[in-house]
């Protein structure tokens, strides 16, 4: 029984990290139709930003979260403005362009900071462990879980309860009609992309104490996060949450029964089959056409 609960908790922990990374990707893909292969590099930038703030400015991780969000969002804004907005009518080419941008970011970090592993300290207040259903769990993992849910809530509010979110939803439904009502689609797209990038940066900063920070750390995340988005369904934030935790539990569970490699292979195969038979994802919100 204890083992079972432990397994569930591990799954939740994996799931919350997946959700953190996938949230930004989901917004960008769902609203702009852009598969952002540079997303992993935004995660990496966030982690490096945490390291820089800590090493050079002496800021703790929690204190530097907001500046990190802003810095990475600024990167995202620039990239949308000067690269992606030129590719409006070529969705397949955005994969290539974002991948190229990702390579550039990775190399730029490698050249400027070096490719050694870097480490970010756990916030001292969260370095102990607490009891969850009688199982000792690191407080930081509980904190990650809470933060990922909170960020999801904030994003949902932003999309559904603010003027910017309303404009974005209008553009998703029909860009030209929205534009004729005076909505500046270019600006909203740039803001959306910046927001998604900022979220990725936050995710990177938040996972940095758990994993070592390196220039190519993002590559693994982007694949997993993408699977979350595909499974959850485009344009469905709630689906993203559900699929993040499903995938977290699944990979935790299969890894426990078999091994990590088999877990990864089975999850990938399951997603291939899913795309074939339900390309709209498991939990699709019906968009009024």
């Amino acid at each position: 029984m204890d083992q079972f609960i432990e397994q569930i908790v591990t799954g939740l922990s994996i799931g919350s990290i997946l959700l953190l990374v996938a949230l930004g990707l989901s917004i960008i893909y769902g609203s702009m139709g852009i598969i952002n292969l540079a997303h992993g590099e935004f995660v990496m930038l966030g982690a490096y930003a945490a390291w820089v703030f800590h090493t050079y400015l002496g800021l703790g991780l929690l204190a530097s979260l907001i500046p990190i969000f802003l810095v990475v969002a600024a990167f995202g804004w620039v990239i949308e403005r000067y690269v992606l907005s030129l590719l409006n009518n070529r969705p397949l080419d955005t994969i290539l362009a974002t991948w190229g941008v990702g390579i550039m970011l990775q190399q730029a970090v490698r050249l400027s900071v070096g490719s050694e592993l870097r480490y970010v300290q756990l916030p001292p207040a969260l370095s102990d462990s607490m009891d969850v259903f009688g199982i000792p769990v690191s407080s930081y993992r509980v904190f990650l879980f809470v933060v990922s849910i909170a960020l999801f809530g904030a994003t949902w509010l932003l999309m559904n309860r603010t003027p910017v979110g309303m404009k974005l939803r209008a553009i998703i439904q029909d860009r030209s009609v929205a534009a004729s009502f005076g909505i500046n689609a270019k600006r909203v797209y740039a803001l959306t992309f910046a927001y998604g990038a900022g979220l990725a940066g936050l995710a990177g900063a938040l996972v940095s104490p758990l994993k070592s920070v390196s220039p190519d750390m993002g590559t693994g995340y982007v694949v997993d996060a993408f699977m979350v988005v595909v499974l959850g369904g485009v344009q469905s934030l709630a689906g993203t949450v559900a699929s993040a935790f499903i995938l977290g539990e699944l990979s935790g569970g299969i890894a426990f029964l078999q091994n990590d490699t088999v877990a990864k292979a089975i999850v990938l195969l399951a997603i291939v089959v899913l795309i074939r038979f339900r390309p709209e994802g498991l939990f699709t919100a019906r968009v009024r056409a």
Partner: protein
Amino acid sequence: MPSNAPNSSRLQRLIAQLAPLLIVCAIVFALPVLLNNDFLLNKVARYLVLGILTVSLGLSWGFGGILNLGQAMSFGLGSYAMAMALKLKTVPVHTGASGLPDFMVWNNVQHLPWFWQPFRSLTFAIAAGLIVPALVAAALGWFMFRGRVTGVYVSIITLATMVVINLVIIDQQSYTGGFNGITDLAQLEIFGVAFDAYGRATYYLVACCVLLSLLVAFAFTKSKAGLIVQAIRDHESRVRYFGYDVALYQIFVFALSAAIAGLAGMLYTVVMEFASPTFLGVQLSLSVVVWCAVGGRQSLVGAFLGAVLVAGMQGALSESAAFLETWTLVMGALFVLVVLFLPKGLAGLAQVVLRWIVQRRQAAGRGVAQGVGQTEGST
């Protein structure tokens, strides 16, 4: 007699289209005369093989509109087919007791597994190197295109499938050599000719395959099936309304491209003298996409040259780590620029330049004939 006129102009056009292909192949064949260095020749052969791989992607991506992010899967399968056969040909010292490959001995495997048995025959291995990738691709194509999966989802499925196969190969260490791949291979020997990786014979073998695969790909693009495939790329549902079985044509071009990639994979094993899971890794697979995009996805020769030039440049700079890092950065920037401003790659640029030159000439010629327009000619 008059019916001959359109025919000859068609022939002329065909020759004009074939010309760049033949010129490039002539250069490839002439290179050993100029380059008297076996080590360099081996390197060039390697880039040529990557060129063939890129041509195969150009066929499915540029002409079929199928962006296969898992093109290296077919390449890797071909490479392993060749490596398995060459491994079984090595002298028993390297292969343990009773001809068992060394890594199997280390992993306590007692008998040669059934799927290794037929690879004692080189003919079977070469056939498998072409047919297995084609069959896997056909099955995957059937799975995708019958379900009308298009665009981005094709890319995701192909990438994910390749990653799964890669994981399985790494995981099944006792049968595949795992992370280390299959090393310590015998030399390929066909009809008494030994193909030493650093010898001329290997180079010419690769060069012949370059010519062959470019010609096959070219013939396909000019065939009726090839035209329909291009029509599907441009407007899928229109072709479907004409009554064509769209999925069938897509599956065919997908499998053909996989077979060519398999051929490239087999050659790669011969040139590199080993097979490794990196041959079907994400890194290589995405690099192929870059080469293809830079060279020109809708031009076979362009894709080929893109791979040879970019991979060659990378190889030349890899002597120094700092250079290589900077080069990768430049490469990323170049790639983004090409995607943004040259969707047809360098081949597209060459076409534009050529057309511009021809037009200027014609304009100049007309100007001289009419005795006016000297000003246009001079500016």
